[in-house]
């Protein structure tokens, strides 16, 4: 399974991580999910990081913001297909915290490593369930024009 994303949107989410460096950025990916579970991103929504205690290595998106994004996506006949965040000066790999706090089974979690303020690698991981036995699986990113 792949996450398909237009190059312009991939650039935007990487740029977001550079702008918030040395803090983590976060946001939502909205778009379509096909019958086989393949996801196509059609918009990204930047979110504020509501973790005020540890911005450099934690992120949290306000549920109120998620409610608004989910409602607006539905109006555009889109779904929330995943989320993105950055790892400042840390690899673009999911962490134990990422897994523990991930609950959107089937969705993509995109992570960009930002080293010294520059976005380096962007990887995607699909969260597979059930919740009690969840895991991340590497997910191919297909970049389109």
């Amino acid at each position, binding site marked *: 399974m792949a996450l398909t994303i237009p190059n312009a949107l991939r650039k935007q989410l990487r740029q977001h991580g550079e702008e918030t460096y040395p803090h983590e950025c976060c946001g939502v990916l909205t778009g379509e999910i096909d019958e086989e579970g393949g996801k196509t991103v059609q918009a990204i929504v930047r979110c504020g990081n509501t973790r005020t205690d540890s911005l450099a*290595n934690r992120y949290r998106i306000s*549920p109120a913001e998620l409610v608004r994004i*989910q409602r607006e996506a539905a109006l555009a006949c889109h*779904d929330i297909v995943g989320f993105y965040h950055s790892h400042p000066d840390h690899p673009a790999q999911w962490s134990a915290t990422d897994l523990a706090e991930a609950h959107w*089974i*089937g969705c993509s979690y995109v992570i960009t490593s930002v080293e010294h303020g520059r976005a380096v690698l962007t990887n995607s991981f699909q969260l597979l369930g059930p919740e009690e036995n969840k895991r991340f699986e590497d997910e191919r990113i297909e970049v389109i024009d």
Partner: protein
Amino acid sequence: MSIKVLIPTPLRPYAGRRSIVDVTAQTVGEALTDLVARHPDLRKHLFSEDGKLRSFVNVYLNDEDIRYLSKDATPVKETDTITIVPSVAGGR
């Protein structure tokens, strides 16, 4: 009365693949009870064994978290929308 419940992407397989479910209720608690009555597979994804909402499940009435209203006893009206959103967080 009939009100709408918005179902998040990960819970749709347990709600007949629907993004919106119409339920009949006078309060938020009744709405959630009716929701799981119509789609029993949702129950374990929304509630823990003691019947409480799972810690990572947020329930909003329009733009308000029901925890800051009257929780399950919060009254609903025909034009209201209940939205279920699992939390999103993490970090390196």
